[in-house]
């Protein structure tokens, strides 16, 4: 599928590492041995409950096999046993770093199924919440990258900012993580009166120390650069073939963004740039995330400025019972394209719900890209994908 040439390049062994190790004759003749290392599921630096069976030749990875399912709750089966509105709290548990996007995707799918009209204010609030959520997801993901590279401090700065965003979420939705805020046909309640001002204040303060804590502290650091530059490099063709979306795809230079290319909700009313980079390595993914945080701040400000008035809940029947058919929803979650496919049989429980989670799809990348890298390079490469356990395990 992918060019095998690149896969077997190995700096340590002068290339052809995999050839030497997989050829049984060579293997026996020279007594080469590999060791298997179980990285995870309980590993201090692994994102959630991922288990990677890594075959090592010295420090060079020759094979990597991700094993999933340690957090599998079969969300799709759960959804088939619940009424439509009761699925929303469960979607919060999918990608627990981007709960708003998960709710939004599911609600878009059900609304598509029912043909509902959403009031513009509800749409604007959804966009506002999703962009705040993107901020709250990208900053820890940069922090995790640094944590795995060994610098412990940025993660706490990231979580400090995330806490402040969560405080806003708590005032708006009532919960800090499992919001259950975006509902079929709108949002649960209008923003509290003082919240737009608070969000504005928060965004201003974030802009003030964002450069210092996330760019100056990390980007210029020579050790960070040597660790991430050229690591996990993919070309655009490979990236698209592997189905990457989100920052891992955009860091190669493909400017695909669901918000722009498949516009939904209130996004056509705001202007922002799709951040791309040319390198396609871990550092480029980091730069894309930094750029996206700045764009999200821009979007939040625009939404606050242009917030329309009106109701926040559309004309939704009390008992949601969509007609027979199929609905699709697609949002740009911080990790890529999150798509929901809902099939209805006319009753008030979904017949089938399918989630396309970006973490799950993007993780195929690991299998392809890891052979030939050193074991410590696993960490920046995980940082490119930034998978979330609840996402890939559904």
């Amino acid at each position, binding site marked *: 599928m992918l060019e095998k040439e690149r896969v077997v390049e190995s700096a340590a062994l002068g290339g052809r590492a995999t050839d030497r190790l997989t050829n049984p004759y060579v293997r026996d003749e020279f007594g080469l041995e590999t060791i298997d290392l179980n990285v995870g599921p309980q590993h201090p630096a692994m994102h959630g409950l991922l288990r990677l069976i890594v075959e090592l030749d010295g420090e060079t990875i020759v094979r990597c096999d991700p094993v999933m399912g340690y957090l599998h709750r079969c969300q799709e089966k759960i959804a088939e046993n619940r009424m439509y509105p009761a699925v929303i709290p469960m979607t919060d548990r999918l990608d627990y770093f981007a709960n708003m996007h998960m709710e939004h995707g599911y609600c878009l799918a059900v609304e598509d199924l029912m043909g509902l009209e959403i009031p513009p204010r509800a749409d604007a609030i959804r966009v506002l919440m999703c962009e705040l959520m993107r901020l709250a997801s990208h900053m820890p993901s940069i922090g995790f990258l640094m944590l795995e590279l060994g610098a412990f401090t940025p993660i706490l700065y990231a979580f400090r900012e995330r806490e402040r965003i969560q405080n806003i979420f708590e005032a708006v939705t009532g919960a800090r993580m499992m919001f259950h805020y975006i509902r079929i046909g709108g949002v649960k309640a209008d923003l509290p009166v003082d919240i737009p001002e608070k969000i504005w204040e928060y965004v201003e303060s974030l802009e003030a120390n964002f450069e210092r804590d996330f760019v100056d502290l990390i980007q210029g650091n020579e050790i960070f650069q040597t660790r991430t530059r050229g690591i996990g490099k993919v070309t655009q063709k490979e990236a698209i073939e592997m189905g990457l979306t989100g920052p891992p795809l955009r860091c190669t230079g*493909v*400017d695909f963004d669901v918000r722009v290319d*498949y516009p939904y909700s209130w996004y056509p009313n705001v202007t922002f740039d799709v951040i791309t980079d040319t390198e396609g390595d871990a550092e480029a993914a980091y730069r894309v995330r930094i750029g996206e945080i700045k764009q999200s701040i821009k979007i939040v400000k625009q939404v606050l400025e242009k917030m329309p008035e009106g109701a926040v809940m559309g004309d939704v029947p009390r008992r949601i019972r969509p007609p027979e058919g199929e609905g*699709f929803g697609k949002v740009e979650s911080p990790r890529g394209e999150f798509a929901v496919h809902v099939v209805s049989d006319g009753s008030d429980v979904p017949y089938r719900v399918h989630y396309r989670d970006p973490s799950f799809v993007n993780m195929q990348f690991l299998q392809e890209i890891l052979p030939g890298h050193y074991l410590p390079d696993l960490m920046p490469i995980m940082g490119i994908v930034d998978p979330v356990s609840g996402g890939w395990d559904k």
Partner: protein
Amino acid sequence: MDVALPQGDLEGRPERYLEGFQSRHGLEEAEVEGNVVRLVVEPRIVPAVLTTAREALGIMHLSFITVVDREGSFGLTYELLDLRGVTVRVKTTIEGEEPVIDTVTSIYPTANWHEREAYDMFGVAFKGHPDLRRVYMWQDHFDHHPLLKSFEISTKRTFEGLR
């Protein structure tokens, strides 16, 4: 960019895709709804249709594969994106309790895990798949496919581990 994505306006592109599909394959049903091209095809020509989509029409991205257990038959939906606003949904129905369909991994390498997931959850066998193992469930000692409608789960209260 060294990858050719469709350029220009959305206007007329779905119709062009539809024409491209219709001129090459016998489709059971085909229509354009807004920016969505909906095709219903026979299961055996799915790889051919997807090859056309990728090679001839330049639709680069396979978004997901959904399987729906319709109790007696399986509906499959392949959602393809051209990354510039047009969605192509290829639908097919496999009859029977033990569904088999040709893999599309050679056309869209990203289908690898989607097909593994479909196999894990529904037991849909993808012929020619390079690595058809379970994704989520146990590799052995587990013969069920949880998302089949015949796999009943208990929603009753349990207090296991209650002291």
